[in-house]
């Protein structure tokens, strides 16, 4: 066992990953070192225990000593056992500390980095995956850091210590272990590559199978509607069968690796025992060294077997680590300065604003438009036209590829301090988030120091107060994850109440597209009109019904500004806006 584990040297990128993981936690390296040191000490205690045990058994069998005469070695054995137990306990604690440091720091760093990357990166499809990585992905590192890594080090160290202990006692057994020991890693390098690839594929397919079943369960109503649900049961069985056959073919080879490992371990025990037996029979060697070595041989192979048991933990952890470092290695798209936004009325202007999410995938093409101070500007266009991207650019969530967003015609948005810029505005997204907590806590996000009277006033202006007052706990009602559910319309108005509370110079509002009945829609429209009054307001409109009152309407088409003007002007022109409006109000063809 001179080489460290084959797996470490076989895949260099993973080594780099290990180093990064350990470096992430403060003091993790020291705790891990301590865990390994304690594990090694426990290994040495095993050797001492074997020595004492062999002494006691020899005395009992060959010197026919009474048990009472062996009180001292027996007591020492008990002491050693206690020491081993203590060492194993301490090693476990130390390893946990190492993992804890890494987990805490990675979760902290990753969340901070996500906040720096902003919603353009974190929101949307990726969001569920990111949240899962932050919690479960980080948690999955624990068994890897706390068990697998120390075990890896012990795989190299403990067998070496055992070899060193056997060498002076019996060189023949030493040779047997010296030969069979390294065969294992060498063999595993050859077969291991293949087994590792198989294992990884199996692991992935297992997840796919599970996802496929979830797909079928979630679509069960659709399948029933098509009268296909019964067929699906047979299909689930058939797919599982195919998967099982393919997997078992792979596993036969994968398990062979560990079978070979076991074979060498078993064979070594048998070989050592038989070789000793022959020499003992002819009186060439004493019982004491023979028994001592026999006790140590299983321990020689034990750490190797331990490695195999943490295999799946390792797969999960490495996949999670990959995802975590993918996030950490993504540089923020936007850069910010430290300028303070000007005071007084706020106007915005886009000058040749071009935005590309990826090179060659331009979402906005050279937009020139103005959002004069104190006016309401509506942005319309079909989905994918670039409305939300324009809003994201004004918020500073995406960086211009070329051109700029100018504040009061003179300061580039990117020159401002980001916190200071956001302090100037209230933003209502298309699907507002209800945070886990009370209604009051949800509102105080916008202004932490607001008193209850201010919260109630904001709710009143958002036309939500009456409904909140009817709840048993009023504004102290828990909502969000694990709390009471709010209807879509109530969530919209809660977000508007936040914006009222924020009382900012600039309002950027992305209108909801979801299910709202006409009554609620009318209430929200009125609240929005109140909110926009006296501010520089920008409204991303999905419902054309709400744009007529805007001072100006910008019509986007395929990432370009198609036309702009008031409702009447645009209608008279008969262009893109008129077409949108026509489509929205044509009688149903059915």
């Amino acid at each position, binding site marked *: 066992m001179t080489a460290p584990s084959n797996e470490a040297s076989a895949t260099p990128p993973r080594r780099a990953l290990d180093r990064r993981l350990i470096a992430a936690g403060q003091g993790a390296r020291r705790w891990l070192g301590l865990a390994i040191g304690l594990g090694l000490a426990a290994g040495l205690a095993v050797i001492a225990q074997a020595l004492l045990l062999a002494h006691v058994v020899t005395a*009992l*069998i*060959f010197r026919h*000593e009474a*048990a009472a005469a062996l009180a001292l070695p*027996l007591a020492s*054995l008990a002491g050693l056992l206690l020491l081993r137990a203590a060492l*194993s*306990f301490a090693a*476990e604690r130390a390893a*946990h500390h190492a993992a*804890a440091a890494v987990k805490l720091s990675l979760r902290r760093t990753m969340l901070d980095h996500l*906040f720096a990357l902003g*919603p353009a990166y974190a929101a949307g499809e990726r969001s569920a995956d990111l*949240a899962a990585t*932050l*919690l479960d992905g980080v948690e999955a590192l*624990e068994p890897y850091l706390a068990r697998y890594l120390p075990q890896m080090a012990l795989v190299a160290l403990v067998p070496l210590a055992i070899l060193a202990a056997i060498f002076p006692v019996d060189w023949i057994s030493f040779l047997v272990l010296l030969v069979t020991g390294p065969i294992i890693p060498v063999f595993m390098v050859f077969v291991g590559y293949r087994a590792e690839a198989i294992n990884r594929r199996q692991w992935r397919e297992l997840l796919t199978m599970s*996802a496929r*079943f979830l*797909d079928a*369960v*979630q*679509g*069960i109503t659709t399948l029933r*509607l098509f009268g*296909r649900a*019964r067929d699906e049961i047979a299909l*689930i069985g058939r797919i599982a069968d195919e998967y099982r056959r393919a997997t*078992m073919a792979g*596993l036969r080879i994968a*398990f062979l690796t560990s*079978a070979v490992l076991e074979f060498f371990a078993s064979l070594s*025990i048998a070989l050592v*025992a038989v070789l*000793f*037996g022959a020499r*003992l*029979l002819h009186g060439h060697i004493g*019982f004491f060294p*023979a028994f001592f070595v*026999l006790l140590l041989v299983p321990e020689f192979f034990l750490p190797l077997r331990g490695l195999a048991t943490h295999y799946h933990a390792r797969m999960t952890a490495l996949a999670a680590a990959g995802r975590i470092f993918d996030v950490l290695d993504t540089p923020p798209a936007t850069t910010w300065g430290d300028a303070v936004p000007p005071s007084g009325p706020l106007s915005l202007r886009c000058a040749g604003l071009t935005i590309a999410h990826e090179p060659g995938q331009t979402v906005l093409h050279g937009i020139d438009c103005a959002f004069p101070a104190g006016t309401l500007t509506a942005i319309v266009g079909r989905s*994918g036209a670039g409305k939300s991207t324009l809003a994201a650019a004004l*918020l500073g969530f995406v960086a211009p590829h070329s051109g700029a967003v100018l504040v009061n015609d003179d300061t580039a948005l990117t020159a401002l301090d980001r916190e200071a810029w956001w302090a100037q505005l209230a*933003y209502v997204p298309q699907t*507002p*988030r209800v*945070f886990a907590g009370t209604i009051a806590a949800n509102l105080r996000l916008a202004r932490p120091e607001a008193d209850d009277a201010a919260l109630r006033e904001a709710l009143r202006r958002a036309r939500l107060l009456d409904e909140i007052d009817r709840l048993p706990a009023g504004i102290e009602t828990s909502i*969000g*994850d*694990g709390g009471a559910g709010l209807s879509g319309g109530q969530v919209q108005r809660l*977000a508007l109440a936040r914006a009222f509370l924020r009382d900012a110079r600039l309002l950027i509002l992305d209108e909801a597209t979801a299910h709202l009945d*006409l009554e609620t829609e*009318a209430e929200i429209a009125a609240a929005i009109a109140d909110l926009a009054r006296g501010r520089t307001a920008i409204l991303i409109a999905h419902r054309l019904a709400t744009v007529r009152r805007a001072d100006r309407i910008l019509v986007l088409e395929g990432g370009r500004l198609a036309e702009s003007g008031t409702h009447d002007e645009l209608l008279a022109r008969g262009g893109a806006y008129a077409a*949108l409006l026509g*489509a*929205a109000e044509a009688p*149903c*063809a*059915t």
Partner: protein
Amino acid sequence: MRDLIRLLRLYAPYRAWVLAGVALGLLTVLANFALLALSGWFLAATGVAGLAGYAAQNVFNFFTPAAGVRFFATLRVLARYAGRLVDHEATFRLLARLRMVAYAGLEPLAPVGLAGERGGDLLSRLVADIDRLGDFFLRVVSPFVIAAAAALVMALGFAIVSPAAGLLLLLGLTIAGIAVPLASLGLGRNPARAAVAVQVQLRADLVDSVQGMAELLTCNASGAMAARVDAASVALLAAQRRLAAIAGFGAAAILLASGLTMLAMLPLAGTLAAAHRIAGPVIALLALGAMAAFEAVAPLPAAFQLLGGMAESARRVFDLLDRPPPVAEPASSPPRPARLDLRLDGVSLRYPGAAHAALAGIDLAIAEGEHVTILGRSGAGKTSLFNLLLRFAPPAAGSATLGGVDLATIRGDDLRSLFTVVSQTTAIFAGTLRDNLLLARPDADDAALWRALETARLADFVSTRPGGLDSLVGEAGAKLSGGEARRLSLARAALRATPFLLLDEPTEGLDPLTEAEFRRALAGLAAGRTVIAITHRLDHLADDDRVVMLEQGRIVADGRFGALRRGEGPVARLSRLREMSRHF
């Protein structure tokens, strides 16, 4: 516990696999035990014979025990390899069976019986539970059975040598395998509960952080949220630290129990040998055997850990599967009536556990070929009406007939083969476009598929895809945009030439131009069928359209849109509201 026994009963068809897995596992443990015990005895016996002089050496049977050592060494390897294969084979079969049983149980419940207080995550929880239960045999049942059987066999083996030695071994195994794991489980109950509670809060905060990022940033509240997450993270680690300490304590206690058993075995064996009750070399057998025996109970702490969670999972799965199906299925259906006129007389509907009736006293007649729009706020009973027509929910009172035949006498699948539903929630499955289309009509040929795509105005889109009909969609394939997914469900509808077309707000969330395209495609499909459309909006209604308005489960208006709009009823009120919101 009863649920776990019920779970075990599902294993019946794979009895042979399960038994073989357990037998091989037992063989592995016993072979290891025998290997070490025999080796110990062998060394001591050869040593004794070697000292006893030439004569003793010659009579000593060297080869039988030496062969035994090699035999047990080989047996252990083979049994373990075969055992792992059989275990996995059994596990895969059991998981497949579990999934099939669960799916068959879910099918009659969907969708009404699956609606629960836990909402949308009910199904993903169920799938996670089933995945977890798939390991029940491998990680819980098998270790317990093997440990119990092995412990008895090994203790019995020792008892043949000396009853006291057998008892001592059994005692040690019981402490290490049952007492210590149970104690650490008990000690860990509170910190484990605390960890779960913190984890729930942490998950909520993390999801909030990621999905509410825009608001957190623009409210300058990201710092506060990061601090909150950090505090929860620290609290979670504190709970985990206590759990790790308890686990470490348990591991140390097991180590101690096994060591002390062996330690106690030594003076016992020495005394027995001194009294000539056993031969000297048997001391080595007892010492090494006692050491090796504890391999049998090594997996038990983990099995105990899993047991509680498995019982929870089994309870959740069976609770769901035990829900009574919302509708009773007749054995066969009457012949299809000549005219498919729908008629509801005084129909009401109430979901189990609901405070209010979803539908109350509905009188409604829809003639074959008629086009009707159902209006109403959310919760007014529009979807319940569809559930009733599709026999997903039974009427609590009144009669619902199709061409004079009571709906309750028609088998659900036969009834639903008359209907096609287009909604915003139609599931698109991971797979090819063709797979997704064939769901609607398994025997359709490519020409029929292309015609359907043509009708849904999706043919251009599909023909520009490199894979054509074999392009992947969903999970692994390309994402369909909202409009494309809706039109795919239209193409499915086009494949099914059913007399009824039910539209459940299929254009919700689409932009006006995309919606207009969808509606043009829909028009081609609607001709010649009975169409019932649900909406909460008045756009796209023509004056001579028939409109039925629901409010709190009752019909409050039924007539032509033009007349109702100009009258004084609820439709007129709604219509004025729309005008107002346009000119706020």
